[in-house]
C-alpha cells in the first residue's frame, strides 16, 4: 500500500472528518478521526493573572464548565501552595457531585439511550432524546428535566452563578452554605438517588432485556483491549473530585498509580503528520501505533475506564450496580478485583453506575457535620510558581497545568482535556466499526455513518464544544480512499 500523507492544513474548517484508507484487497487498513480543534489557548492565557483561569477555562467547554472550573481551582491551590480547609473540599466535592447528576443524566437520555431505546437501526431523525421520550413516555422526560433543574439549582446556589460558577478560589470556596440551604440540598440529593436507580432499571429492562442489544454491546466491532485510566481514592474506589491517577493494563493489573502532578512522567504525546490532533500514550510502554494490547501505550479515559481502573465504588448501591455490571458482562475476578470490560458501548452502563455513585456521594457529603462550617478558605501565604490540578470530567481525566511568575501572572499553560486522552482509542473504535461494513472495496453506505457514530459517541467526545456558532451542527464527513489514496466515496452528514 502506498504511503499517503494528508496535509492537515487541507482539513475542512469546522468539520469532523473520518478518513478511511483501504488496502489493495479493498479492506479497511487504517482509519483516522479528526475534529475541529480550537487554537491559541495557551497564547491567550499567557500574561493573564492566574486567578482568572477558573473563569476563563470554563469557557472552553459548553457542557462541562463546572469541570474546568474545578480543575482550574485545584490548580490554583497547587500554584499558590495552599491547602483548603476540610469543609471547603467537601463543599467543592458536593457541588461537583450535583454537576455529575445533571450531566450524566442528560447524556444517558440524549446520547446513550437513543442507540438502545430507539434502536441502532432506526432512522437518524428518531435516534435522539425526542425519540427516547416517544418510546419511554413523556413522564420520564419530565423527570429528566426535573433532575437537571434541581441540580442546576444546587450548582447556582453553591457555585454563585448558574452554568458558569464563580465560587472557586485558591485555598477554598468563596462562600459557605447555611443550614437552610443544606436541608434543601439534602432533599435534592435523595431524589437524585431515586432517579439514578430508576434510570438503571430502564437500562436493564430495555437494553439488557433485549438480546440483540446485548449482542451489540459484546460484539467485536465495539471491543478494544487497551489500558484504562481513572482517579481513585485511598481505597482505590472511583472519585471524581480528587485522588491518585490509576492506570490498569488490559488484563486488569495495576500498571501505574501516581499523583496528578507527575503526569508528565507517565504520559507523552505522539504527533502524526496527517493530523493536528495529539495522541497521548503511556510513556513507559511506548507508542506502537493505533493498536490494541498490552504492548501498546494506547489508553482510554471514559466512565468505563474509571470503573475498570478502580476496585469498585465507594457507596453501597453504586457498588451493587458495579458488581452487577461486571458479572453480567462476563468479567471474572482475579486477585479480588474484576477484570476490565473491553466493550466500549458498556460506557453507557458505566455512566449510570457513576450517576448512582454521584447521588449517594452527594447525600454523604451534604449530611456531613462539617458541610455548613463557615471556614471555607485558607489564606495564601506563599509565592506562586507552578501547579497541576486534576479532576474527572464526565468524559475523562482532566488536567490543568499552570506556570506563573512571582506575581501570579501566567507564563505557560498546558491542558489535557477529557477527550484528548481518547484520541487514539476513538480512531481505533471507528476503524473497527467501519471494518464490519467495508469489504473488497464495497461500502455498505447505509448504516456506515450510524455504526461509526455509535463507536465514537460512546466516548462522549468534545467537539470544539466551546463554539456556539450557528447552525449549531458539526458537519461530519467520511472519506473513503483506495490503496492509491484516491477518494472512492464520500459520505456526508449536516454538510
Amino acid at each position, binding site marked *: 500500500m502506498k504511503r499517503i500523507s494528508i496535509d492537515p492544513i487541507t482539513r475542512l474548517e*469546522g468539520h*469532523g472528518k473520518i478518513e478511511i484508507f483501504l488496502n489493495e484487497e479493498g479492506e479497511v487498513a487504517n482509519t483516522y478521526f479528526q475534529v*475541529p*480543534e*480550537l*487554537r*491559541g*489557548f495557551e*497564547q*491567550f492565557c499567557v500574561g493573564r493573572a492566574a486567578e482568572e483561569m477558573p473563569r*476563563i477555562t470554563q*469557557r472552553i467547554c*459548553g*457542557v*462541562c*464548565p463546572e469541570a474546568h472550573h474545578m480543575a482550574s481551582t485545584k490548580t490554583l491551590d497547587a500554584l499558590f501552595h495552599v491547602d483548603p480547609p476540610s469543609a471547603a473540599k467537601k463543599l467543592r466535592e458536593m457541588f461537583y457531585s450535583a454537576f455529575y447528576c445533571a450531566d450524566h443524566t*442528560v*447524556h444517558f437520555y*440524549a*446520547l446513550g439511550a*437513543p442507540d438502545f431505546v430507539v434502536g441502532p437501526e432506526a432512522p*437518524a*431523525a*428518531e*435516534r*435522539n*432524546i*425526542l425519540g427516547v*421520550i*416517544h418510546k419511554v413516555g*413523556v413522564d420520564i*422526560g*419530565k423527570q429528566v*428535566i426535573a433532575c*437537571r433543574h434541581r441540580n*442546576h439549582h444546587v450548582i447556582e446556589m453553591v457555585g454563585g452563578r448558574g*452554568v458558569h460558577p464563580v465560587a472557586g478560589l485558591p485555598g477554598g470556596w468563596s462562600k459557605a452554605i447555611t443550614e437552610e440551604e443544606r436541608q434543601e440540598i439534602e432533599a435534592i440529593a435523595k431524589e437524585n438517588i431515586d432517579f439514578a436507580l430508576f434510570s438503571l432499571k430502564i437500562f436493564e429492562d430495555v437494553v439488557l432485556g433485549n438480546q440483540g442489544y446485548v449482542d451489540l454491546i459484546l460484539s467485536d466491532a465495539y471491543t478494544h483491549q487497551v489500558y484504562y485510566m481513572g482517579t481513585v481514592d485511598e481505597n482505590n474506589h472511583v472519585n471524581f473530585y480528587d485522588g491518585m491517577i490509576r492506570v490498569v493494563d488490559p488484563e486488569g493489573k495495576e500498571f501505574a498509580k501516581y499523583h496528578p502532578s507527575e503526569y508528565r512522567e507517565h504520559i507523552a504525546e505522539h504527533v502524526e503528520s496527517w493530523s493536528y490532533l495529539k495522541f497521548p500514550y503511556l510513556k513507559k510502554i511506548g507508542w506502537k501505533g493505533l493498536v490494541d494490547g498490552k504492548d501498546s501505550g494506547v489508553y482510554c479515559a471514559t466512565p468505563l475506564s474509571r470503573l475498570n481502573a478502580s476496585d469498585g465504588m465507594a457507596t453501597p448501591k453504586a457498588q451493587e450496580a458495579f458488581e452487577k455490571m461486571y458479572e453480567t458482562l462476563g468479567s471474572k475476578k482475579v486477585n479480588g478485583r474484576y477484570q476490565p470490560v473491553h466493550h466500549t458501548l458498556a460506557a453507557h452502563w458505566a455512566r449510570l453506575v457513576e450517576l448512582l455513585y454521584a447521588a449517594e456521594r452527594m447525600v454523604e457529603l451534604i449530611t456531613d457535620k462539617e458541610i455548613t462550617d463557615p471556614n471555607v478558605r485558607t489564606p495564601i501565604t506563599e509565592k506562586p510558581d507552578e501547579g497541576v490540578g486534576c479532576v474527572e470530567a464526565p*468524559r475523562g481525566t482532566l488536567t490543568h497545568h499552570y506556570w506563573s511568575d512571582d506575581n501570579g501572572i501566567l507564563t505557560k499553560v498546558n491542558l489535557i482535556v477529557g477527550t484528548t486522552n481518547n484520541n487514539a482509542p476513538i480512531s481505533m473504535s471507528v476503524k473497527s466499526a467501519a471494518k464490519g461494513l467495508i469489504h473488497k472495496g464495497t461500502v455498505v453506505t447505509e448504516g456506515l455513518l450510524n455504526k461509526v*457514530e455509535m463507536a*465514537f*459517541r460512546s466516548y*462522549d467526545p*468534545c*467537539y*470544539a*464544544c*466551546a*463554539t*456556539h*456558532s*450557528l*447552525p*449549531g*451542527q*458539526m*458537519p*461530519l464527513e467520511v472519506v473513503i480512499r483506495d490503496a492509491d489514496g484516491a477518494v472512492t466515496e464520500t459520505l456526508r*452528514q*449536516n*454538510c
Partner: protein
Amino acid sequence: MASRKTLVVGLGNPILGDDGVGWTVAEAVRRELNGSDVEVACLSVGGVRLMERLVGYDRVIIIDSMYGGGGEVGTVTCFPIEQLPNPSAGHTSSAHDTSLFTALETGRAMGVDLPDEIEVVAIESQKVHDFSETFTPPVAGAIPQATRVVCQLLSQQTPEGREL
C-alpha cells in the same frame, strides 16, 4: 404592543473571537432598551441547557454568529428558528446532548412552557476557532446593524426572514 414576556439572548463564547459577537450585540441592545421590561441574557450554552433557559418566555430573540452560512462575512440575517438548518436530527454534531431544535421539540413534547416565537439574528463570521477577545473587522462592523435589527424586531409583532 402586546406585553409578551420577551427574552433577548446573546449566544456565544466571549473568548473565541467572532464566536462572541452575540454577546456584544446583546449588550448593545440592553443599553438601547434602557429600562424596558425585555430581559437580556448573555449565554454560552446550547442544546438542552439552552432550551431550559427559555422556559417561561413568550418570545425569544437569539443573537449569534453564523459559521458556514454561505453569506459574506459580516452579513446580518434574521429568520425564525424553524428555518435554522437541521438536516438530520442526528446528534453527532451537537457536542454532548442534542441540537437546540431537538431540545425545543423535546421540551414541547413534555409540556414544558416554551416560547411560541423564537427568532434568530445571525452575523456571518470568520474566525471562530481561535481564542481571542477581538472580532475580525467585518464582524465588528456588523454590530451596529445587528443591534438595529434586534431593536426593530422588538418593536414588531411578527418575525420576517430576510437578509438586511
